[in-house]
């Protein structure tokens, strides 16, 4: 029944182990959403119970309270090496960006600070191709320039599970172990494995968060799904995109591409 989930899991574990072996200084970005929770779970599988690198939350102080509660509980229970990186204020952002995109860009800057101070060479991020069209163009090992930029027009060849793992001094690589998963896969796997989930994903008063982000730029969508099974049933029939509640995505035709090119996750 779940041979396809086994395949997805095995592929992700392979990627995590490649990253851990080939990249000297690694960190995992934990947004505390459903995807990065699955990513943490897969790390524990890949490395037999422990997460052998720091887990970083880029904090804008704008997450919902349930998110912070969940973070502190899980970090303790799973014995995570949690680092919280405070993001710079919105006033420091590129003012040519549309306002909501500017709010999201705070995380990009937080990440740049993290890279500067932590000297990380690899950052693991739980993004998926089916979330958003520019993410669909991503590589599993996605190199970033010295400034952290993503050169979408000249990405490295990546085939037969051979990833780019050699880089110039000072650059870093984003590693995307969940790139091949879908939203539905995440939920089916979370259910199978019993992975803890932030309660905001479940419907309350006819609304639920389908994608979690900062409270000023993320909104719940209409839903009556109160359990994982109901969420799965909802996703099989829905034609509403996952990030419909993420206001910054569609502010301008290329706002998300601009965010990502300059280093957003």
């Amino acid at each position, binding site marked *: *029944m*779940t*041979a*396809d989930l*086994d*395949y997805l*899991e*095995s*592929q992700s*574990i*392979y990627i995590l*182990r*490649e990253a*851990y*072996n080939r990249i000297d200084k690694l960190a995992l970005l934990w947004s505390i959403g459903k995807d990065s929770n699955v990513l943490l779970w897969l790390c*524990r*599988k*890949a*490395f*037999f*119970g*422990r997460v052998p690198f720091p887990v970083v939350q880029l904090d804008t102080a704008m997450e919902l309270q349930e998110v912070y509660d969940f973070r502190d509980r899980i970090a303790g229970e799973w014995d995570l090496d949690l680092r919280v990186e405070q993001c710079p204020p919105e006033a420091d952002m590129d003012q040519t960006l549309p306002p909501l995109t500017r709010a999201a860009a705070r995380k990009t800057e937080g990440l740049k600070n993290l890279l500067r101070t932590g000297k990380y060479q690899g950052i693991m991020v739980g993004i998926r*191709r*089916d979330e958003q*069209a*520019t993410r*669909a*163009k991503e*590589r599993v090992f996605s190199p970033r320039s010295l400034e952290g930029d993503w050169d*979408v*027009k000249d*990405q*490295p*060849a*990546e*085939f*037969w599970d*051979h990833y*780019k793992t*050699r*880089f*110039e001094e000072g650059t870093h690589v984003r590693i995307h172990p969940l790139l091949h998963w*879908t939203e*539905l896969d995440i939920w089916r796997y979370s259910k199978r*494995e019993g992975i803890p989930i932030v309660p905001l994903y479940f419907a309350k008063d006819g609304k639920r968060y389908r994608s979690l982000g900062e409270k000023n730029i993320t909104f719940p969508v209409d839903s009556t799904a109160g359990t994982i099974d109901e969420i*799965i*049933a909802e996703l*099989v*029939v829905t*034609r*509403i*995109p996952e990030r419909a509640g993420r206001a910054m995505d569609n502010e301008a*035709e*290329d706002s998300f*591409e601009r965010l990502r090119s300059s280093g957003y996750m």
Partner: protein
Amino acid sequence: MDIRNELNGQLRIVIVGHVDHGKSTLIGRLLNDTGSLPDGKVEQVHEMSRKRGMPFEWAFVMDALQAERDQGITIDTTQIHFKTEQRPYVIIDAPGHTEFLKNMVTGASQADAALLVIDAAEGALEQSRRHAFLLHLLGVRQVAVAVNKMDRVEFDQYRFEAVSHEIRAYLAELGLHTSTVIPIAARHGDNIVTRSGKAPWYDGPTVVEALDAFRPQQAPTDLPLRFPLQDVYKPDDRRILAGRIESGRLRVGDTLRFSPTGATATVVSIEGWNHSQPIVAAQAGQSIGITLDKRIFAERGHIAHHEEGAPHVTHRLGVRAFWLTSEPLTVGKTYTLKITTGEHRVTVESITAVIDIEDLSSTPAKAVHRNEVAEVVLRSRSPIAVDLASALSRTGRGVLIDGHDVVGGCIVVEVDEGPAASANTTEVSHTVTADERNAANGHKGGVLWLTGLSGAGKSTLAMALERALFDRGWQVFVLDGDNVRNGLNAGLGFSAEDRAENIRRVAETAKLFADAGVLVIASLISPLQADRARARAIGGERFHEVYVAADLATCESRDPKGLYRRARAGEIPEFTGVSAPYEAPESPELTIDTGKVTPVEALGELLDYVDGAFGRNALKRGRV
């Protein structure tokens, strides 16, 4: 659609073909006509098209990058999910422009099957053929063809059949099985999801039916076991060997052999986390960890397998390679070959053939340029555990890395078992034997001693030989008489005693190089029989004397360094040939008269001799 269908295995389809033959349009149409686009997408595409003053452009569904939409081209590969009644799919869009071939390869390598799109009016152009060839190399074996823009040729049956015939013949020659060629007009949706009334003469499947007829790729569980190690973890007192099984099966209690080391051990456990029951068996496709009964030397890159059906272990392989970077692959250049998790430094020994994509003919070449496909022979220092791609594709293919970048890919088509490493009776103090060094280098180490008058052409010949051998991947170095006098022998003069010492030191140094596996070309006047005999005694059977003969008059007329003139003027005492004797060798291994042959002929003679005395054949002879 119910949940049950959702759980059916998904199939990954890559759409390939020449630029502007309508790949992105076909995908847009496919997604739309199967109801797979999210709400609002069509409106979004309308708006993007309107802003650019274009009619509705289906390609914008896939072309996520601003640059792609503005230039109207697909730059990078992308993936999008869609469903038919039968099963879920991942559609992989691959760019058609030559300059984005690495992106096409990236996309196509992940596919179970391919749909090749060809313009009805234009037929199978260069990129159609190149993509088909690469599909074959990448291991994509199921291909359907869509002949697009049939509306532009008024759904002409004869035109369709001409294109269909041409591409079928080409694919058959590649060994690709084509079940289906479909006449379509992607822009209007003809024969995509629903059958078109405009081609009543066609009774084959629609695009969706053709996709549904493909079979998902099966993990190769019934082939011999290959378990390449990714890493070794020590989370506690366990020592866990981690990796993914690429083919076959593995059980607790199995005896495993590790290649290329040959170490063996028994599987004690298959380790997991969050498993309620102990795991007793695992199979191809699974990422696992195992513990062994013995603490053997095993690390990343080693491949575990059963005693039966072992991989080849070799220093030399023939591969079919595709090249993705602007700097060409050339003979003599060294790259890193990565096969599964194993990395090996390899030197290009020869380029057997570059394959013409148009007619599949082969021509020998010195270099393989970007986007070309070629047959290449690679030699490795370290032994490589490898399979033939035709037998076990996952351990029979790899990437070539230059510096920081993946620059090409290859499949293994030939393995040279060559002389295996064995104990050597003369080199007891080294654990690395001379045979092993020879096998790694692909030639013997030795000393080629060039003797002759000043101006006979020794240095020129030595340097030309060094270059030629180096370009073929040899370990080679010239010890030049003049050069060593600046360093190693800086304290020595030109007395008979110092000259003898000069030669002794060079001979000893040459011997050390030869011991290290290098072919040393010693280029010295070395005028005295006795001194050369001593050098031969030092070098032993690996010492080969080459007499670079040219009569005094010839040498004097060349006088490249002006030494004869100064000697005749009395400025240099005891100058060989003028005021000191030169004793020609009585029985040199080779004589080359540079007064009678051209420099090119001289080099040719020398190369032939070196090949015979130190090359591969000499290696084989040495072993029987």
